[in-house]
């Protein structure tokens, strides 16, 4: 048997015997992440639904000055509440999302046919409250427009003259694309799955083996070091890949329980998504495993290796974060950047968008190139004399 394979088989077998680590890396990690993800999405969706369906609670100051307006609001599913002692304070303290204040001179202006002022008191820095204020503004606009139309009609004029411009909105978002903003963190969950899957072995086979004093006898065997490294790397990659595969499968199953349909979103998480995601994740997982091994081999001790590898975990989060906060247009060059290309491709697959074959090819080629570099660097570290000797 080839030495490369001998090392691979031994590392896999030894790691499989460590039940607790196997359970953690292969089950807890890949299953936990999609679970959290679904939980997160559920919370967001529930909030969206509540916003649309629940009555708008509205404390009103001076409701007695505009009984018609208040009655009209009540008809529009607004829950009129008694006025707080200090409206501004109530909003600042988040006791109320939005408060409506009607002045004592409201009726005077209204009857004279002049603009009668009402105040909408809210805190724009509260995301949810500012949505509620928008709802109230729309209701007040409707009321204002309707009353204005009636006044024009009373003077024998057509309300149309106040509408020189008529517009209609044509939203080009598809249900998938609306969902995609929510799901741009998903690639990171897959990457994280691979990371957690490979972490234990990456450290164990390098600085762990050195610390347990078994690396020096191993290197005394008549096997070139690159073959030993290759075997160890492949074992790490195999576990990382299993982890990613389980992550993708778990998501494909759990994803069906997402209430996305309730807010008009559909997700493309069929076999096409799973196959495409695995295809681009394959070289990336190998790259991450090499980087983990490189970093862990470079470290002087097991503890140091753990610190470095944990820090490395934040690197793949960068593109995912970027995409979930700032909408970025997909550009051709993005397919040529490892990590970024996986982010773009998986997100597009999820949205049901087209991914060109050249995109797949570029992504895989660039990631394999980076993998070759990482492997070469790891070989260099492995060739150094310092490596085998435990401090």
């Amino acid at each position, binding site marked *: 048997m080839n030495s490369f394979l001998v090392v691979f088989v031994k590392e896999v077998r030894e790691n499989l015997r460590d039940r607790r680590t196997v359970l953690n890396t292969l089950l807890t990690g890949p299953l936990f992440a999609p679970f959290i993800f679904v939980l997160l999405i559920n919370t967001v969706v529930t909030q969206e639904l509540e916003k649309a369906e629940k009555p708008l609670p509205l404390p009103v100051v001076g409701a007695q000055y505009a009984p018609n307006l208040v009655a009209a609001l009540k008809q529009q599913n607004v829950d009129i509440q008694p006025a707080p002692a200090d409206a501004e304070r109530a909003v600042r303290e988040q006791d109320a999302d939005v408060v409506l204040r009607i002045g004592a001179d409201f009726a005077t202006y209204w009857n004279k046919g002049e603009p009668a002022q009402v105040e909408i008191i809210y805190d724009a820095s509260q995301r949810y409250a500012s949505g509620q204020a928008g709802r109230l503004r729309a209701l007040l606009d409707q009321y204002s427009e309707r009353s204005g139309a009636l006044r024009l009609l009373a003077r024998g004029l057509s309300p149309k003259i106040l509408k020189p411009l008529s517009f209609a909105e044509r939203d080009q978002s598809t249900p998938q694309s609306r969902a995609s903003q929510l799901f741009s963190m998903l690639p990171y969950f897959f990457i994280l799955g691979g990371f957690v899957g490979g972490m234990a072995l990456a450290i164990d086979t390098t600085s762990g083996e050195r610390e347990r004093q078994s690396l020096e006898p191993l290197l*005394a*065997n*008549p096997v070139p070091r690159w073959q030993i490294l290759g075997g160890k790397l492949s074992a790490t990659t195999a576990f990382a890949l299993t982890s990613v595969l389980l992550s993708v499968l778990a998501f494909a199953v759990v994803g069906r329980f997402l209430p996305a349909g309730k807010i008009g979103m559909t997700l493309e998480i069929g076999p096409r998504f799973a196959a495409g995601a695995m295809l681009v994740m394959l070289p990336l997982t190998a790259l991450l495993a090499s980087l983990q091994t490189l970093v862990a081999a470079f470290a002087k001790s097991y503890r140091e290796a753990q610190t470095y590898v944990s820090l490395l975990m934040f690197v793949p989060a960068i593109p995912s974060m970027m995409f979930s906060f700032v909408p970025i247009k997909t550009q051709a060059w993005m397919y040529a950047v490892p990590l970024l290309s996986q982010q773009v491709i998986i997100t597009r697959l999820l949205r049901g968008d087209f991914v060109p074959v050249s995109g797949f090819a570029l992504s895989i080629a660039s990631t394999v190139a980076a993998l070759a570099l990482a492997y070469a660097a790891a070989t260099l570290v492995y060739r150094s004399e310092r490596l085998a000797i435990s401090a």
Partner: protein
Amino acid sequence: MIEVRSLRKTFGPVVAVDDVSFSARDGEITGLLGPNGAGKTTTLRCLYTLMQPDSGSVTVDGIDAANDPLAVRRRLGVLPDARGLYKRLTARENIAYFGRLHGLDEATIRARSDAMIAALDMADIAPRRTEGFSQGQRVKTAIARALIHDPNNVILDEPTNGLDVMATRSMRQFLRRLKSEGRCVLFSSHIMQEVAALCDRIVVIARGRVVAAATPDALRAQTGAANLEDAFVQLIGSDEGLAA
């Protein structure tokens, strides 16, 4: 047959091995004796090509270590100072792993493992996972895996370190057995009695240099000392670090 010529190895400003030359012959036990920090381990590491010497040469059975390190390693059985085992594998699996790395077929590995397990009297521990092994059981397993490929040359770095009296005795018997099989046995030690009891030839190293290389009797004659201990102290220049 192991031959070392003018070996020199430095780590930055520290000269670990200055100028070491000696040879270890087949069918003999050669002892590398010296106080702690004399350069014994570094010399041995250069022999099994873990380290590259700055200058000088190492040949094993006529093969130059600098030219063909893999061939040299194939002819060596090595028990390094570090003798960690894979604790989630059994002793037999630990041995077989090294057999496979030597490219042996499964039948040979089985036969050789059985022979080593019998020779080292470790049949009771062979099927057990090595986690929780005593120091003696660990050394036995480490030796068995080091010799799985039936090498002509055996290098052991302080093989009796941490062993109790009984384990030390059986280790000595085992080394004599390797010698009687016609192998070249080279081991390092800082314990004088051990070297005196076992060796056909003694190479005394101090501060990275060979200060004497001869049979125990010749050493006594050379220094004019009545016993070996006095001879060593005289050779090394001080009794610092020489455990009695």
